[in-house]
């Protein structure tokens, strides 16, 4: 998958912080490089 393919798929998607705030998914790597790990489950 390229970023161009990913971009339309992430429009409007948010994740929730542990403080309960909704955070726009693509804001997580806006202006910085990150390692993004999707976990299977907690536990």
């Amino acid at each position, binding site marked *: 998958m390229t970023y161009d393919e990913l971009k339309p*798929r992430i429009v409007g998607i948010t994740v929730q912080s542990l403080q309960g705030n909704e955070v726009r998914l693509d804001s997580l790597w806006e*202006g910085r490089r*990150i390692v993004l*790990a999707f976990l299977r489950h907690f536990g």
Partner: protein
Amino acid sequence: MDIKGKLDEAGIPLVAVGSGSPGGARHFVEKLHFTGEMYVNQDLSAYRAFKVERGFWKTFAPASLIRGIQAMREGFRQGRMDGDNWQQGGVFVMGPGNALIFQHRNKFAGDHADLDAVLAAVLRDSPVQPA
């Protein structure tokens, strides 16, 4: 040094997204002393957007069971699970901005990314050079 230490050294944040509850995420952070950023995505929309695999036979694939037995022999014990049982994981190196640098989607439970490849991708044309 573990991968988190190397990422810290390179100034690259580790951002985790889980499919469970915020309470489960807090428990996970405390139990494993996780020092990265943690978010939850219970509707799995972010997983779907990244085409991360999901399915019963991905969780219970023969290779998953073999990896599970190996992990138990090494002392790992599965605790209380919180999240989608059939959802698999993945690792991506993103940014800054519109850049997808590395992608790994677990084909089955226990099919982890090659951490050396992750680190190499992190440092490739990195905006932050390690000291």
